[in-house]
């Protein structure tokens, strides 16, 4: 009897119109795991994340088949999709500061979920901004606009917002694309802390980042899993597939 995985994906297929971009992939992600996903552009990484929190539905003419289960429950059958999305924190590649104050950016999700007490919100906002390594830089100007922050700060604001609804799963889609290396390292340290509380899916173009952080890494290419294994194998000398070795070593891709 194995423990139920946090996320179960079975034979997932996704088409945009008639073009199939994910060709029936299956994998599990365990509780409190950091799960790396690497692969070149157009390999279906972002689409996969959008299937998990069902924001794929906002794109026109998409067809999803197969199942994605979170905590054993199929996401396609979840009636309260907003509850599902609150369970999953999502950080997009390009930072999006909402046109609100820094405070309101972080308090947005809890407010949408019905939290109104100022004291609760204050505590939560501070906690999330600290986790995103942004608190010290903005604590004196929480009322200024989130959109006026620098790109790297906005990305950390996005991370704070993703944490603000206290998700059980955190999906980071190329989160470090707009952040300098030092801040990236600070956030990576934060992620190591956060894994005690949540499951983390780390989509990244930086293979070394997946190597540093993840327990297991999946190499996705053209909508298919080339290889999925623990990091020692994927980033070791003898991955099962030559393409994995080549990609990780920078021979192609």
């Amino acid at each position, binding site marked *: 009897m194995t423990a139920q995985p946090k996320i179960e994906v079975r034979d997932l297929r996704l088409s945009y119109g008639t073009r199939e971009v994910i060709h029936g992939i299956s994998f599990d992600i365990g509780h409190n795991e950091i799960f790396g996903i690497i692969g070149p552009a157009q390999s279906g990484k972002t689409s996969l994340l959008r299937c998990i929190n069902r924001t794929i539905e906002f794109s026109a003419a998409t067809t999803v088949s197969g199942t994605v289960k979170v905590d054993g429950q199929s996401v396609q059958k979840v009636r309260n999709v907003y509850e599902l999305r609150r369970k999953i924190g999502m950080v997009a590649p390009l930072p999006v500061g909402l046109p609100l104050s820094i405070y309101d950016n972080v308090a947005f999700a809890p407010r*949408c979920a019905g939290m109104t007490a100022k004291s609760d919100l204050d505590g939560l906002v501070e906690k999330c901004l600290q986790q995103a390594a942004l608190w010290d830089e903005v604590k004196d100007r929480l009322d200024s*606009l989130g959109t006026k922050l620098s790109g790297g700060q906005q990305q950390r604001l996005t991370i704070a917002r993703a944490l603000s609804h206290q998700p059980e799963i955190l999906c980071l889609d190329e989160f470090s694309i707009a952040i300098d290396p030092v801040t990236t390292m600070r956030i990576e340290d934060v992620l190591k802390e956060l894994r005690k509380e949540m499951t983390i899916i780390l989509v990244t173009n930086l293979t070394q980042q997946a190597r540093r952080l993840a327990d297991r890494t999946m190499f996705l290419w053209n909508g298919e899993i080339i290889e999925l294994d623990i990091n020692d194998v994927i980033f070791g000398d003898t991955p099962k597939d030559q393409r994995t070795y080549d990609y990780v070593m920078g021979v192609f891709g």
Partner: protein
Amino acid sequence: MFTETPFVRKKRRAELIAKCFFGGMAAAMVIPLILIVGYVVIQGAPSLSWDFLTTNPRLGGIRGGIWSALVGTIYIVAISLCVSAPIGVFSAVYLNEYAKDNWFTRIVNLAVVNLAGVPSIVHGLFGLGAFVYAAGMGKSILSASLTLSIMTLPVIIASTKEALSAVPISFREACWNVGATRWQTIRRIVLPNSISGILTGVILQVSRTAGETAPVMLTGVATFKAIESNGLFLYNPLTDQCMALSMHLYYIATQANNAAPSLPYAIATVLLGVVLVVNATAIGVRAYLRSRKKW
């Protein structure tokens, strides 16, 4: 390093020509406005006075003021906007934020575009058939206002959709990702950031509503009707007919034989004044809301 090659000279010349050309075109736009306004105001000046605005017309409109026409225009504009603004704005929100791309949405969008292209006299005929006769409202302020509402609706929908789609899609996605419903996204992010454009679009329809003659002529505007004792509220907006500035201008300019020559120009000046005041308000509101826009 910075030598003047023939290519660079040519490029600079082309740049100068382009700038002058476009600037000249922009300046040319100002000329007709100045000529129209100037001509109308100068010609109308002899008839203009405070009494002209606030007294009823007499003798079929050729003597006295234009009070009842001014009040009628205000009534028609106000009622028609009260109908078309909410319907137009909310249906645009539906079309832009909720509607999926299916046959129903496409039909609605097609209808909006085509409705916007229907000539105003045809709207007038429709209003005559639908409101005056079929709905039994008779020739009344209400019929005229509703006819104008139908006429302005598609334009309000189009301008509102434009304003809504100017809000980046990434804002919406960020909201959906954290579990916000569509309505929460619209209320907290989309509407606050598009309200200036929406209001501008709505307010600009005021000038169209005030200026139309054909649709109101068929549906509820009389050539002559005084308000007793110059009061404001003697019109019954449901059943009465009224006068309107646009119709009054048309009538005096073409049908009345012995009116003072300055009278039509004076009416036109008042009509222009009403429109300019409303447009100035629109610009002010837009400037205020723009200054609060946050990205």
